[in-house]
């Protein structure tokens, strides 16, 4: 079996494990809900007043005014509440332990063991702490893409739907994407931005060579030396074949161009995350239809500058932060579709509200954290809006969603009801990559 086939076999096994979930506790719960009397913001269609939403077996069955309540449904009056799709944080550290380098205050005994900064084969899924991840639901977040923040090639992300008691059971897409952070390493190659680009280019060249080597061996193994298995190069294969996206984390304006140059050279699918100055390239992004995951981590929008940068340029730092804050509204004005993502901001929704304060219309912001995010991540066929047939990821809000006073009263993930405690726990500013 080729390494690629082996890898796909593992993926299938993981899926099988997912399906083979024993019909234990979760299945015993009420599986049919009808939320009645709410204002329903479907996102994909019109907003409906005094309407009903029916969920069955984890899937939305019906949405509309005057939809009959099925006799087997548990009916919940939702008068005065606003229903929206569950919020999606499409680029986050949700459920990941704090990195060891953050010091005793943040990391301490729970710090993650250092992992290779150049490990495309690493799976974020293996690092998720379920209890930590589930806390994100308090803020109405039902779906997250998880990838470690550290490293240049931090591995492959997972998209989790936040219901279940095991990370595997929560996986909505595994692996979700391969990731390249346009950052650098200390005292190790690549130690410069140009080194990082060169490293990515060489990795892809090596992955092509690896593919060809194995393909030739598979065609006629007799008389040939067996190629060597390489987990890192095997990890690139789905990206090369166009089955998986390469998500490039852009810290600088031109990182977007760098990502597109890599996409063009190797004819692979690329998405861009972070991108605090993406609005400057709005036309290019629009023309190229780049899936764009715009960060709301405004402070600071980029890592500390390395040797060669202008140190102590506070004016520039301030302008960069201003740029990042108006980035979403400028992109919206330019007609670019995008997701808003936490990009490791400790408080995702505070960042989203900041973008709204800086001119992004609230409806556009809501779309960017629901359907827009689902589109960018390639999961809009299953979640991101309130439509029959989609996963029952639904939030019932007291107050207007994405305002400071909004509270998630009920959060349905895969049609499973979760009720955040009253009062909602205040987010800890120290929590690395917390979901809120």
């Amino acid at each position, binding site marked *: 079996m080729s390494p690629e086939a082996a890898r796909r076999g593992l993926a299938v096994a993981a899926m099988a494990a997912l399906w083979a979930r024993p019909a234990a506790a979760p299945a015993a719960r009420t599986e049919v809900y009808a939320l009645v009397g709410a204002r329903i913001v479907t996102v994909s269609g019109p907003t409906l007043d005094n309407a009903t939403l029916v969920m069955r077996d984890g899937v939305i069955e019906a949405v509309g005014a005057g939809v009959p309540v099925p006799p087997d449904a548990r009916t919940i009056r939702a008068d005065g509440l606003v229903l929206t799709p569950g919020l999606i944080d499409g680029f986050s550290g949700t459920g990941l332990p704090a990195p060891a380098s953050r010091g005793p205050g943040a990391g301490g005994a729970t710090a993650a063991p250092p992992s290779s900064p150049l490990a495309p084969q690493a799976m974020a899924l293996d690092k998720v702490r379920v209890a930590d991840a589930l806390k994100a639901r308090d803020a109405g977040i039902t779906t997250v893409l998880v990838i470690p923040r550290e490293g240049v090639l931090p591995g492959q992300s997972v998209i989790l739907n936040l219901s279940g008691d095991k990370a595997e059971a929560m996986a909505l897409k595994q692996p979700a994407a391969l990731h390249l952070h346009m950052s*650098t*390493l200390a*005292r*190790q*190659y*690549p*130690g*410069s*931005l*140009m*080194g990082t*680009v*060169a490293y990515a*280019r*060489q990795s892809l*060249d*090596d992955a092509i*060579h690896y593919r*060809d*080597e194995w393909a*030739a061996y598979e*065609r*006629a193994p007799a008389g040939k030396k067996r190629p060597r298995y390489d987990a890192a190069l095997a990890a690139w294969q789905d990206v090369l074949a166009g089955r998986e996206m390469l998500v490039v984390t852009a810290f*600088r*304006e*031109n990182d977007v*161009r*760098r990502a597109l*140059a890599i996409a063009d050279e190797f004819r692979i699918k690329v998405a861009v995350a972070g991108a605090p100055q993406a609005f400057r390239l709005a036309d290019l992004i629009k023309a190229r239809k780049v899936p764009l995951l715009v960060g709301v981590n405004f402070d600071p929008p980029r890592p500390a*500058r*390395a*040797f*060669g*940068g202008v140190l102590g340029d506070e004016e520039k730092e301030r*302008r960069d932060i201003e740029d990042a804050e108006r980035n979403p509204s400028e992109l919206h004005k330019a007609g670019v579709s995008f997701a808003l993502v936490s990009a490791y901001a400790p408080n995702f929704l505070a960042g989203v509200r900041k973008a709204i304060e800086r001119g992004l219309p609230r409806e556009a912001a809501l779309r960017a954290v629901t359907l827009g995010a689902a589109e960018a991540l390639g999961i809009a066929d299953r979640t991101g809006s309130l439509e029959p047939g989609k996963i029952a990821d639904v939030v019932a809000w007291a107050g207007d969603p994405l305002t400071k006073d909004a509270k998630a009263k009920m959060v349905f993930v895969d049609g499973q009801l979760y009720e955040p405690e009253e009062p909602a726990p205040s987010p800890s500013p120290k929590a690395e990559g917390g979901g809120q």
Partner: protein
Amino acid sequence: MTGPVLVAIVGGTILTVGPQGTIEKGAVLIRDGKIAAVGRDLLVPAGATVIDATGRYVMPGIIDCHSHTAIEESVNECSDSVTAEVRITDVIDHRDVNLYRELAGGVTTLNVLHGSCNTIGGQNAVIKLRWGKPPEELLFKDAPRGIKFALGENPKRSNFRAPGPPRYPATRMGVEAVLRESFQEAQAYKREWEEYEKKVKSLGSRGDKPIAPRKSLRLEELKDILDGKVYVHAHCYRADEILMLIRIAEEFSFKIRTFQHVLEGYKVASEIARHGAGASTFSDWWAYKMEAYDAIPYNAAIMAAHGVKVSMNSDSDELARRLYWEAAKAVKYGGVSEVEALKMVTLNPAWQLGIEQRVGSIEVGKDADIAIFSAHPFAPDARVEQTLVDGVVYFDRAKDVAARTAPATKAGGSP
């Protein structure tokens, strides 16, 4: 349909730095970014934009053969002493305001180099100062490829303290060994590919194609150096290491295109000339480290007298704005003629970058990269009034001064 874009610079003293010499009250006609005519009594075509240069001096745009301007983040990939695979073209920061400031010094082309941390550093980018254009539009199209080498204290990390064990090489003999090992490896790599290509050819359409060898971007570049496809720009100071690099290059049958800094070049000027290399130096920087103690300001003049094509470079965003004065110092120290001194910031660096057919002098057919000075560029009070790249005015002092006094707009000044 739009007609050709015509520009006429009229009335000035034209320092062509080419066969036409100096032309008083001359004119330069530009058509679609190229110089269409140079001389006296030229007819200005209808529809041309006229730039009145009366009382001013018009010279070819200045070329800086050693720059680190517009590099985003680190200029060095310091993690290894051989990093031929990294490319400055990947990290051009087109918003670096130094590009504009250098236009204000009459500069139109830069050789943007990797730093000198490594024995064999990264690939260079030759760019034009088309301020406001995205990175890919700054590149000097069809300029020969180039790479940075470095010898002496920087690659052996003499003056830098970093945590951890010292990086190899830590001595000058280590630098030489790294060069030799690298090119031996490149030779082996080249043979491996040649054998593969021979095998593919002999098989024709028959049978199983052999698998290509692994493509190493680092060794590809070294192989191309061996094949003479890449210009080597070597940072160096001491005479002994200059001779060492000439020996290595001749052992492996490739050429050094320029010695950079080359402060002891005057001691081995004949050897540099015999190898066919150019020299890109400072006018009078010296003693900023041990290997720079034997510098003399006559270096440029002495090397030029021995037949070396010499340029004055900046290695600095700040000095790059006054390279015309650096050239003037060659007149003061060593009695270089005015035109030879002008060549040190125009035609000679153009040759060093292999773009002398395109830029470096005001000649018909060349790119209209032109600096217009208020006085002779060697005069102490000379300043740049306008700088054109491809016939387009990218710096205009009058407009700049007006903008400085205009009320500040809310948006930033960068394009």
